[in-house]
């Protein structure tokens, strides 16, 4: 289960994605993470992922739409830890802005090995009977446009080196339901199937695509949930707790690693066993 607060304006969220660079023949991996600062969240999945990739020798590019302070803060934290990070502004739903960012990265580093499509798109939390088509459509459009545009933009760069790792962040709500989450769950289901098509079509050029799908995660986006609800979820989870952003980030990093070389088109739930999807 993953529940989000409705994000009222674009100012409240920052989509994130990641890129990895690898030095040809080099021992040390250099990564490019175009990481997330969702909701200006100091504890979000994107930020945790960026931080972990940096710890593994990554150069981290942190993307933001409006919350420059949060992005800069995440980059500073990485640099203070001895890592490398830069920030880049851009709305991932815009083809022009995405292409501009990819061109900058390609121009500077000459390759791009990982994309982490973690963008948290805003959505309306409502029962279906009260939902306007425009509300429903907005989430679907945002979610898919970002994934579509990003995938088309990064794959040519990855294909040049016959190597790429794309991780899409899904949601358990694409497999089961929760009240008021129709827009989110349906959009994530579409994203999950999109990932399979990416795997099928880009496999021949050495690119893998997988979905890492969190259940309920402790972030600012779920902080509004009453404590007794969080306790109930934890009690129903075999591992006895709710995920921390780090749990999800570590799974993402696994799928971005070399160990996952022959894994593509798959869906991996990170929910402590609460729902065995």
């Amino acid at each position: 289960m993953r529940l989000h607060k409705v994000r009222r304006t674009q100012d409240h969220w920052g989509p994130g994605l990641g890129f990895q660079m690898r030095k040809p023949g080099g021992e040390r991996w250099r990564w490019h993470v175009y990481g997330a600062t969702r909701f200006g969240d100091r504890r979000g999945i994107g930020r945790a992922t960026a931080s972990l990739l940096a710890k593994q020798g990554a150069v981290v590019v942190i993307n933001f739409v409006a919350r420059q302070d949060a992005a800069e803060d995440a980059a500073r934290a990485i640099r203070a830890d001895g890592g490398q990070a830069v920030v880049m502004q851009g709305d991932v739903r815009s083809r022009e802005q995405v292409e501009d960012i990819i061109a900058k990265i390609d121009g500077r580093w000459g390759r791009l090995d990982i994309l982490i499509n973690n963008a948290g798109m805003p959505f309306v939390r409502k029962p279906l009977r009260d939902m306007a088509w425009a509300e429903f459509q907005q989430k679907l459009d945002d979610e898919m446009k970002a994934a579509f545009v990003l995938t088309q933009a990064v794959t040519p760069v990855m294909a040049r080196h016959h190597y790429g790792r794309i991780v899409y962040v899904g949601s358990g709500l694409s497999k089961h339901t929760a009240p008021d989450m129709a827009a989110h769950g349906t959009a994530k289901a579409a994203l999950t199937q999109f990932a399979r098509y990416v795997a099928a079509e880009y496999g021949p050029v050495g690119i893998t695509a997988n979905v890492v799908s969190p259940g309920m995660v402790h972030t600012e986006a779920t902080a509004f949930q009453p404590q007794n609800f969080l306790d109930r979820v934890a009690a129903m989870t075999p591992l006895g707790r709710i995920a921390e952003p780090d749990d999800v980030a570590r799974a993402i990093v696994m799928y971005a690693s070399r160990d996952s070389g022959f894994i593509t088109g798959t869906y991996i739930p990170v929910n402590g066993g609460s729902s065995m999807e």
Partner: protein
Amino acid sequence: MLNGQLALVTGGGRGIGRATALALASRGAAVAVNYLSDHRAALEVVTLIESGGGRAFAVQADVRREADVQRMMERLCTEEVPLSIVVNNANIPFVLKPLPDLTWSEFSQKVTWELEAAFLLTQGACAIMKPRHYGRLVYIGAGLAHHAAPGWSAHGVAKAALEQFAKYVATEYGPWGITANVVIPGLVQTDASAFQPQEYRQRVIEQTPLGRIARTEDIAGAVLMLVGEDSAFISGASIPVNGGII
């Protein structure tokens, strides 16, 4: 990063088991290489690991026999480092036959043995892991548990049952900090699949987005992911490792 942990790989002498044993050792785990009858193959894996500076030993046991599994667990408990990782890999033999020709005893033998091995191993290993509140179990499944191919019913059905068993293990042992996951290989280049005609291989390759058949190292890589720290909150999951073939 697996330093200070003991890993048991059943059927660790050959194929996927061998690659997994080597991979685990390369990350610092001490490895118990279980085998049924091929002593030489198991010793070879041990020698390879030791020559790389790792710690490994061979342990004979028929994982379908309770007394054997018990004896193996007792042996593992004599090691300095605690048992933390179990890879349920041992290939349980089965009859490849169309359903009309298959006898119940041929069919039930595979299903029973597959589950008996997993059951005994799980109970034995979890009893050791529970007090330390840490354990990683990985079961090797099969793509044929999800789709069908003519003649493979015994194998496919047994692996489907194994996969569901793993989910129950994840549910019931989760409170003790033990995770259980399944790695699902498609066609893998091993001795066990060597009988497949070249023409069939070629067809699989053509249908595989990544354009090749899995090597045992590919499966070992997925196992490594599920036994490391990064997978701490992943349990009851099944990961296909098939290069994206549908």
